[in-house]
């Protein structure tokens, strides 16, 4: 958290940095990245592969309770140039057994839907903070699995919580241990 704000400060001081290609996104990101790091859920951390680029980062979720407890799950988040008219692109790079995340890493979260028919989709009033908390909630709340991405996992969850739990743990042990 401290390093991020220090970095933001440094960025502002260096006025000889090249003109950004996406000035709106970058201006929003300076504020939103700071807000996100300040309001991060306890089980989450954020890592920037290139510290001069706030538009690409990895969110790491380490649930301390629930089905996925003990796992380390990585989400690669790409805030494209059209932000905040479009949501960030999110890919889960850790293989896991989850009704809303496919085994290839696609994430089904209403917030991240660009064209939404209801009020739950993306809207420019959303912030990175909402995205982080939305992803975090995939591991804490199990509210509804209509239209799941992993149909088999959703069916299993409906029919046998025990089997579901075993399969989740099997995946955690094989793919999600640090």
């Amino acid at each position, binding site marked *: 958290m401290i390093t991020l704000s220090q970095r933001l400060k440094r960025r502002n001081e260096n006025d000889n940095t090249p003109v950004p290609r996406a*000035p*709106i996104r970058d201006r929003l990101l300076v504020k939103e990245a700071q807000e996100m790091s300040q309001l991060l859920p306890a089980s989450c951390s954020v890592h920037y592969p290139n510290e001069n680029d706030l538009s690409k980062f990895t969110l790491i979720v380490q649930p301390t309770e629930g089905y996925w407890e003990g796992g380390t799950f990585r989400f690669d988040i790409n805030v494209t140039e059209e932000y905040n008219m479009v949501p960030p692109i999110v890919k889960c790079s850790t293989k896991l057994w989850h009704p809303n995340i496919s085994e290839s890493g696609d994430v089904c979260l209403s917030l991240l839907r660009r064209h939404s028919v209801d009020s739950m989709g993306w809207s420019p*009033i959303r912030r990175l903070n909402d995205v982080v908390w939305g992803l975090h909630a995939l591991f804490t709340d199990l509210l509804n699995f209509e239209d799941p991405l992993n149909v088999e996992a959703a069916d299993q969850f409906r029919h046998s919580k025990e089997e579901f739990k075993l399969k989740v743990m099997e995946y955690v042990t094989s793919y999600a241990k640090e």
Partner: protein
Amino acid sequence: MFTKVAMADENDNERMDGDNQKLEKMFTLKKWNAVAMWSWDVECDTCAICRVQVMDACLRCQAESKKDSYGKQDCVVVWGECNHSFHYCCMSLWVKQNNRCPLCQQEWSIQRMGK
């Protein structure tokens, strides 16, 4: 599809900044100029899309006017039938992909435009 229903906490966080700012502004205004109170709501409304006050130029126009020296761009405010206001620049970009007010989700139709 995973739909988060219990969003109250997050939304509180989300608006925390804006509300604090508003409270601060309302307080100082009241202190030094009670006459200006009637127009406070309009004057201090923040565009929820670019998070700049609607009475100032939007983030996009600000970024552009920094580059060219042709002076300030005419960045106007638009009010919807729902009474929510945004920069016209910001809203016209958004309605291209979703013709609803981002704040109340009502179908967007312009009530008036101006400064």
